[in-house]
Every structure is written in C-alpha cells, then in structure tokens.
C-alpha cells in the first residue's frame, strides 16, 4: 500500500526545505546586496537589508583596478584543463577497478583517498621547490598539473562508484562482438556512464574553480586565477566589504551560471544508482 502523505506533513517538509535552502543561500544573497552598497552602508548597524542607496560604483572600481578578464581566463583554463586531464587518467583507472578488480583494489582506493587527508600546506615547500626548478611557478600548466593531481582521487572514486552500477555483462557482450578495450571504454562504457561522468566533470570544475590554496601560493602575476582577484580586495585596515563583495560576485557569477544550467545533470549524476 502506498504511503499517504498528509497535507500537514507536506507543509512541514516544504517549510523545512525552504528554511535550509534560505540559510544556505543567505551568505550569497548578503554578498550580492553588499556589493551594491556604499562602504559606509556595508558596515552600518543595524544592517541595511534592501533600503539603501543602490550603487554600481564598487563594480566600476573593481573593474578599473584589476584585470578581471585575465583572472577569469586563467580560472577557466585551470579548472577545465585540470578536470579534463583528471578524467582522461581516471576513466581507464576506474574501469579497471570496477570491472577487473584485483586483490588490492580496495586498498588502492583507500590509499588514494588518504592523500586527501594531509593538509596541503604540508607539501607546499617541496612542491614549490619542484616548480621553481622546473620553471612551472606562475604558469597555467603548473596549476593544471597540481589541480589534476589534487582532484584525481575524488574523480577516480566518483567514477568507480558510477561504473560499479553498470552491469559487467554489457561490456562482456561488447567484447564478444569483437570490441577491443579502447572501443569498449569509448563506445560502450562512456555513453552509459554519461550522467556520472558529467556530474564528476561539473563537480570538479567547481572544486578547481574554488581552489584557493595552490592557486594563491603557486602564482604571481601571470597565471593567477579569480581566487587571487578576490584576495586582493580584503584588508585589515580600512573599509573594503562592499568592494570585496563586488569582486566575490564577479568571481562566482560564472560558476553559479554553470551550476544553474547544469543542476539537472548534477543532481542526476550525484543520485545515480542511489535509487533503482
């Protein structure tokens, strides 16, 4: 018998969902509002919510002071580049772990994840020295390499989980029909795992876009992405909240738009295999 859902229950669940959604969204909304305030209004107590003199001055100032498009392109190249590179490595790796697991596959998976448990700053100096000696400091390619390595465990894990849901018999059938390994992965496995791969891709682009440790520490003026653009508007002395908010909005706008248009894919991918 299907469970009946009472109106009262619906109302409560909806109210809870909205409360949580607003609580999560509020900091972004507040940043958005602050970006249109004057510096004096931005720190006013009690805070001004909607009734203040709206101004776009902060956006003009930020545009005038920083080369937004340079940082933007760096962010795009670094996040997309590192994600694509990670996928190219991770798809075959996840295939082998999911369909031809060995005795130590589980251990390898755990070991890969364990690398994420060490604070990044622990390896800052060795990586900095390697980058210095190989001329990779302040280059996009250097950041693509580091972010690829950083996100690889997560990419492999996500793809492994998705691939595990795909019946091995289908791949066997492809093999029976004469497909070699490359064809099997490209023409049979990948199309079936598209939702999973797409959500992995999107999530990793977002992670790489927001990464603020390596992108700040390994760059100077040429390859710095939007994280440095934001960091340049914070200050311990003087008023900066409105300009910082404007810079933040400009930095997160592209990724919000991407997330907005691909939310269906994201949700589908993240819940892939959860409900049969």
């Amino acid at each position, binding site marked *: 018998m299907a469970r009946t859902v009472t109106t009262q229950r619906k109302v409560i669940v909806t109210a809870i969902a909205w409360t949580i959604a607003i609580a999560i969204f509020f900091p972004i909304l507040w940043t958005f509002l602050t970006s249109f305030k004057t510096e004096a209004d931005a*720190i006013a107590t009690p805070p001004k919510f909607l009734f203040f003199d709206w101004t776009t001055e902060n956006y003009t100032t930020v545009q005038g002071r920083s080369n937004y498009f340079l940082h933007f392109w760096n962010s795009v190249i670094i996040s997309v580049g590192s994600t694509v590179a990670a996928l190219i490595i991770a798809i075959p790796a996840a295939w082998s772990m999911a369909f031809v697991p060995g005795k130590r596959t589980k251990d390898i998976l755990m070991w890969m994840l364990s690398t994420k448990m060490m604070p990044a700053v622990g390896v800052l100096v060795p990586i900095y020295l390697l980058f210095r000696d190989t001329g990779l400091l302040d280059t996009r390619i250097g950041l693509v390499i580091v972010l690829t390595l950083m996100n690889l465990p997560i990419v492999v894990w996500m793809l492994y989980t998705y691939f595990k849901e795909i019946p091995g018999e289908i791949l066997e059938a492809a093999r029976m029909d004469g497909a070699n390994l490359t064809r099997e992965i490209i023409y049979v496995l990948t199309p079936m795992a598209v939702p999973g791969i797409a959500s992995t891709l999107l999530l990793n682009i977002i992670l790489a876009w927001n990464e603020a440790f390596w992108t700040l520490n390994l760059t100077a003026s040429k390859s710095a992405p939007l994280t440095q653009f934001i960091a340049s508007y914070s200050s*311990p002395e003087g008023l900066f909240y409105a300009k910082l908010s404007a810079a933040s909005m400009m930095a997160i706008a592209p990724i919000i738009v991407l997330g907005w248009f691909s939310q269906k894919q994201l949700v589908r991918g993240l819940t892939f295999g959860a409900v049969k």
Partner: protein
Amino acid sequence: MSSKLRGLLGACSLVALGAAAHAETITVATVNNGDMIRMQGLMADFNEKHPDIQVEWVTLEENVLRQRVTTDIATNGGQYDVLTIGNYEVPIWAAQNWLLPLEDMGADYKPEDFLAPVAAGLTVDGKLYAAPFYAESSMLMYRTDLLEKAGLTMPENPDWDFITEAAEKMTDKGAEIYGICLRGKAGWGENMAFLTSMANSEGARWFDTDWKPQFDSPEWKTTLDTYLNLMTNYGPPGASSNGFNENLALFQTGKCGMWIDATVAASFVSNPNESTVAEHVGYAPSPVRAGGDNHGNWLWSWNLAIPASSQKQDAAKAFVAWATSQEYTALVAEHEGIANVPPGTRTSLYENQEYLTAAPFAAQTLAAIEAADTQSPSDQEVPYTGGQFVSIPEFQAIGTAVGQVFSAALAGTSDADQALAAAQALTTREMSRAGYPK
C-alpha cells in the same frame, strides 16, 4: 618610397625593437591598503621616468601576502622583484641574507630624511634593508563631545586610571555608547599588538634577559586585569571578535567614546564622508601607567624591499627609489591632495605647514612615532627588539596562541589568572622547543 624614407623607417623600427627588447618587467607584491592602491594609480609618472621598466602588481590581503612572500623568499623562488613587508620581517629576513641592502639610491633620495625610529627598525648592521613607504604608531582617539558631557578634560598624558574613569562616565549602554573600544580578535598583529603595547606601558615584558616568559609577573597581571575590566564593563558586546575594522566601524558610527589603535585610523575617523563623528574627534597619546612615562607606542611600517633572489635588482631599485622618494610625496599631494600622502616616513613631511594644516592629527602621529622605542620597548631590560611584537621568527605562532588565550578570557571562558597561567605555560613550552635561550 624613397630609399631615404625606407632607411629612416627601418632605423625607427630597429630602435623600437631595441627598446622593447630592453624593457624589463618587475613584479611587485603588495598589500591592499589605500596608499598602495593610490600608487598604482600614479604609475604613469614612473613609466614616464623609466620607460624601460614595466611594473606588474600582485595585490594580496596582508596574511595571504605574508605567507606567499615568505614561501617565495625562503625557497629562493624569485617570483617577486619588490616585496611589501612589515618591520617585523625586515630584521629577521635581513639576518638571513634574503634581502638586498638599499645603497646608492640616487643623489636626491635623502635616506637621512627618514624618521629615526622608523629607519632604526629597518637597519641591520648599519645598512638599510627596506625603504619605508608608510608608517604608523598608536594613539588614543576620543569623542570630545562625550568627554565634555562626562565633565572631564583630557590630560596631556592620560594614564590608565583616567581612561577607566572616562570610560565609565562615557558609557551609556541604553544609547549603545560604549566608553572604550579595543582590539579583542585573536592574533599576533590583532589583540596582541595592542596588549603588548599596553603591557610595555605597564612596565611588563614578554621575556627576561634569559628568554624566560614573564606572564607570571605582576605587571602582566595589572595589564590583563585593566584590559578585561575596561572591556567587560565599558566595552561593546562581542568585543572578542573585534579588530581594527570592526572598531573603526563602531567609532565612525558613534558607538565608542575612546579607541586606542593605529594612528592611521585618524584619517578615517576625521573624514566626514566616512565618519558620522568627524567633527568631535580628539587625539591624545597612548595612555601610560599612573606616574609612568612609557606610552608603549607601537611602531609598524610597510616597507618596500628587494629580495636577494630577484634577477632584476637594478630595475627593482629604481622602482623602490621612486616610490619612497620625496618626489613621490609631492606627486601624491598634487594629484590626490596633501592629506592623502603616505604618512609617517619622512621628517620633511612633518615640516610642511600645508600638510600640518590639512591633517589635524599629524602632530600627534609624529609624536607617537617618535616616542616609539622599538630598541628597548619596556622599562625593564629585554633581550629582544620590537614595540608591539617580539622580533623573533617564533613570535607569529606564539603571539597568536597567546592572543587566543586572552581573547578567550575576554569572551568570558576563563579569568585573568587562568589566561596568564595558560600563556606562561604555552610560551615556555614553545620557547624551549625552539631552543631558547640561544
């Protein structure tokens, strides 16, 4: 086209190519503050004087910048040609041979014009290792209207007893007016900058001559008791998370009677475009202990230094010489108004009547900087230098840890005795780990 014209064009393009080939690009790492941003807007003058040098800026928040340039200089990374660093880093980095001594800066440079206490903090073995761009000390800013209403007059050299009395009389919690606002946010450059200065004025010190921590001394007890009494009874709510900006916002919106902080605050609180109390701000020296004469003034300067790892040291030197010259001061005065020139570095600025008129806080700023004694900050003998900090590499970590203990005491999770005992224990542990006495 005649052969002459062709020849001329060819020669022109060769010259242009030659110039392009010789143009050097230097990377300057700097902090986001008003003076530095202003300089970026005035680069046309530098480009005109040095068409062969191009400048690329990396502007970062102070703590991010500190971590970033420390990594680069410690690993000899060579990513930057000019660094903006504080007077805390300069002597430590100079001792490591990480910085280039600034000699032969040009005939018009006049390094002897730098204010003596500021230059002293940047000089190691008689050599200047960084050029001061902007400097500040600490002072007391107060609301003249509230003090008058309280029936008090600000003495020439206020002591902590007077501050307590004034704070009590100015406080009107119903009207959201708090007698005093002080830093409470934990950090070696946050609450510990203020508390170390205050401790110096009370005759306390961080370490004795054997590098033994001194938080168990009566002077530190007096310092923390006075601070907690002031802030608990007459300070704003949630003060344990207040730093410079939070207190600035409180003062500018009329919620503080008194505020002891960086002299640079004076230019903000006296600016009618930003501050609602601009007309009622008075300035006085940082308080002393009753009968004492040590104001415990801190001294902070942002300086331009050239890392020894830079491959373009001559171009970097030309930039530093331009940015910290008297001509630069005149340039800012011409384009941005004389009140906006970077304060606190050159004696000549404080002899300029136009500046003294435009900046009513200038005399007090100069007095505060000149009173700052970073070489012997406490009345007692100490083995270190530094006003609001101890100039050793370990201080950032220890200062922040002690700051957290004192911030917790302000938040009410421990009392003064517990906080001092905890500070003593953790400082003793960290210093012995670091191998002191060395």
